């Protein structure tokens, strides 16, 4: 197969785009498309300060590399969740992210959850009933809270996450099959800032997972290949497998599924559910001061209160 642009040997065939690209043109295409998505959704501008959630995995490091090459001011934040055990997962992820940042002269802040709040995510999961056998729900809550807190404290203009199209399609699939309307109205490439919450954007939301992986490989980015030990057997992974089966049958299925949802959202098919500033002003956590829907402590502060 030949590169559509130059006729050299192609290294990536993207059937859903009817496009094959060589090892030189594929990374260029990724950068151009990322810039296009940032512009299309008015995600952020060059003069703004950005905070990227970095996991040490392929997606976040590929996104950081692209944004750095596009000239954006992006600092990274790594949340050390204390998921170690046999795989030493958190420790290796953190080292990987730090090495990436050092090699490029980028700034990475590491927050150690146990050092700051007294418990790691696995310890939190085993103490509370919320996680049942896995601490994934606590983990998600802690990450969302801390990212927002660090962005507010550091006066960043936007929080960036490297969710790709497969992540978004799997999340959408789950929410649709459960008719979870509360989440359906919130899933969008950009969530504007509101009282107590920094703007959140997903510049990789239109890329397939194999494209972000290919970018990391072609650009020599060292990323953590080991999965989080709690991801095994997760609903999200299962949904991704189902969606890939559909993609194998019909090229472009995932892309059409997600893009169709965004069009429906833009057309008002699903109500956009974001709390109004007035509502958020009504209640504040008595401990941390963040807006909360409940009286007294917010969910995060309740989680760490024994």
């Amino acid at each position, binding site marked *: *197969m030949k590169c559509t642009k130059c006729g050299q040997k192609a*290294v990536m065939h993207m059937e859903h785009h009817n496009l094959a690209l060589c090892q030189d043109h594929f990374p260029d295409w990724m950068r151009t498309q990322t810039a296009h998505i940032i512009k299309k959704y008015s995600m952020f501008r060059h003069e703004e300060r950005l905070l990227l959630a970095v996991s040490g995995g*392929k997606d976040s490091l590929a996104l950081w590399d692209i944004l750095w090459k596009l000239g954006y001011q992006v600092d990274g934040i790594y949340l050390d969740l204390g998921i170690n055990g046999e795989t030493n997962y958190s420790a290796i992820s953190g080292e990987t992210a730090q090495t990436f940042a050092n090699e490029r002269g980028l700034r990475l802040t590491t927050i150690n959850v146990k050092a700051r709040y007294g418990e790691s995510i696995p310890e939190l999961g085993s103490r509370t009933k919320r996680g049942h056998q896995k601490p994934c729900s606590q983990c998600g809550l802690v990450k969302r809270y801390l990212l927002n807190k660090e962005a507010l404290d550091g006066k960043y203009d936007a929080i960036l996450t490297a969710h790709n199209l497969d992540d978004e399609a799997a999340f959408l699939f789950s929410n649709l099959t459960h008719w979870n309307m509360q989440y359906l109205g919130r899933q969008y490439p950009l969530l504007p800032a509101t009282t107590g919450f920094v703007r959140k954007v997903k510049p990789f939301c239109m890329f397939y*997972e194999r494209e972000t992986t290919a970018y990391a*490989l072609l650009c020599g980015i060292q990323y953590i290949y080991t999965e*989080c030990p709690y991801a095994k057997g997760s609903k999200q992974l299962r949904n991704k497998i189902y969606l890939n089966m559909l993609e*194998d049958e019909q090229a472009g299925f995932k892309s059409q599924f997600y893009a169709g949802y965004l069009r429906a959202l833009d057309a008002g098919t699903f109500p956009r559910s974001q709390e109004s500033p007035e509502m958020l002003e009504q209640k504040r956590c008595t401990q941390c001061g963040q807006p909360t829907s409940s009286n007294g402590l917010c969910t995060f502060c309740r989680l760490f209160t024994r």
Partner: protein
Amino acid sequence: MLATLKIREKEIHIRGNRPLYRIMEDLQLSPQAYLAVRDGVLLTGDDRIQEGDVVELIAVVSGG
């Protein structure tokens, strides 16, 4: 001599002299879920795998 496919810690020995997509089909592996690398070069589905080749399949699906 067979070709070797490496998937994480596993090694599979398979018949070569056929395109990668045929091998993926036979092994019931989704081309969406893996990237194939031979001698440091990414392969597309139509690339032929020869006897004696060592191909690494890199899983791309992640998340919990």
